[in-house]
């Protein structure tokens, strides 16, 4: 029900030129870029897909799309400065040109989840790939049952999209719970791991779809906690991360057991990967 690869742009190996329209800093090491094609329309995409962003002369890196797809002019990407390519991309300013291949990969099952309760669990930067799905669910709120957004991060100062989390929380018809791993005593919110929030929100486990994104170990604990709560593994979707190069399933860099994360993922159903999920060598 989840996997629905969407067609990429013309020649998937040729980066298209995009202009950086806006840049804003999210955290000390994380920025968000709004980019628009230098010519032609912005390709359509589905929540959960990613683009290959190319810093010319430095390298290319897979970054999830984190914007609202109802804005038909731009892509929005949140980039953490962790390596040479991401550092170069995170350092670009307004007006700079960037190469884009994509969108690639599978999507969150937001259409398939209609009529069900939906639990969205994000850890750290994992909120970025989930944000388009959240926008979609909020824009189509009547199509879903209970909606819960659970977010875990390291420290209150590391909270991605803080203002939006606060805004979502003000909605009276969804639950938003935030927790941090550590905090000083002036923090009045939750402290603890994000799977611990699952029993605190209301949903019918027999009719719930769960979307999970974050560090792999956090997703493992979360998927197990969701299953313990009664959510069937085929109703849990995870967004996997591997070293992607070609992004179209040719090079094999992102192999994950029998699958390639770039074309069979990044969004994958837990029941299909559960067996290999805990294998360290994979």
């Amino acid at each position: 029900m989840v996997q629905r690869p969407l067609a990429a742009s013309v020649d998937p190996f040729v980066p298209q030129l995009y202009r950086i329209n806006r840049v804003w800093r999210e955290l000390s090491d994380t920025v968000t870029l709004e980019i628009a094609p230098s010519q032609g329309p912005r390709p359509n995409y589905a929540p959960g897909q990613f683009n290959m962003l190319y810093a010319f002369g430095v390298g290319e890196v897979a970054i999830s799309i984190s914007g609202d797809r109802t804005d038909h002019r731009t892509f929005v990407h949140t980039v953490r400065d962790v390596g040479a390519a991401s550092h170069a991309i995170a350092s670009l300013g307004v007006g700079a040109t960037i190469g884009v291949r994509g969108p690639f990969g599978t999507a969150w099952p937001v259409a398939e989840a209609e009529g069900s309760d939906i639990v969205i669990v994000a850890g750290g930067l994992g909120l970025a790939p989930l944000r388009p799905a959240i926008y979609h669910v909020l824009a189509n709120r009547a199509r879903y049952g209970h909606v819960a957004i659970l977010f875990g991060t390291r420290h209150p100062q590391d909270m991605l999209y803080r203002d939006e989390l606060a805004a979502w929380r003000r909605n009276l018809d969804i639950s938003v719970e935030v927790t941090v791993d550590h905090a000083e005593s002036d923090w009045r919110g939750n402290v603890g791991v994000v799977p611990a929030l699952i029993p605190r929100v209301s949903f019918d486990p027999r009719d719930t779809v769960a979307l999970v994104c974050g560090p792999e170990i956090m997703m493992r604990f979360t998927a197990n906690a969701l299953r313990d709560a009664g959510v069937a593994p085929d109703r849990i979707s995870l967004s996997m991360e591997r070293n992607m190069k070609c992004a179209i399933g040719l090079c094999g860099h992102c192999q994950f057991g029998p699958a390639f994360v770039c074309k069979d993922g990044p969004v994958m159903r837990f029941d299909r990967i559960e067996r290999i999920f805990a294998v360290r060598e994979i």
Partner: protein
Amino acid sequence: MEGLERILREQAFFAGFPEDQIVLVAGCARNHRFEAGQYLFREGEPANEFFLIRHGKVALEIAAPGQQPIVMSTLGEGEIVGASWLVPPYRWTFDARAVELVRALGIDAACLRGKCEADHYLGYEMMKRFAPILVKRLHATRLQILNVYGKR
């Protein structure tokens, strides 16, 4: 006393607890109210009582000399605060502070330990409920110290 028995029966922690044993636990229980900022207990104090939160949020803190306390966990409605009453020398190893108004049931530790010694069925029922909580919190602590959200 009947009121305390009813409150205990309503708590998920005591779901399925034998009726006669609810009466025994209620004999060791009393109601508490803690204002925001008030401490339920402090590190090093005797663990004479543990708490079942009925309403509100409690922060578990550890403080190093000269530094602000670090909150390592928060607990909410239906959750148990404190396990040191189970393990000699029965002293708290962290502080527990009410983040907001907290209403809680306090269970007198010496009273309950005595009843558990006298009635091992009661002791076993209590252990069956405490062991999963302790294991779950141990797992959560392991995940926290991994610092999974940090740069790799």
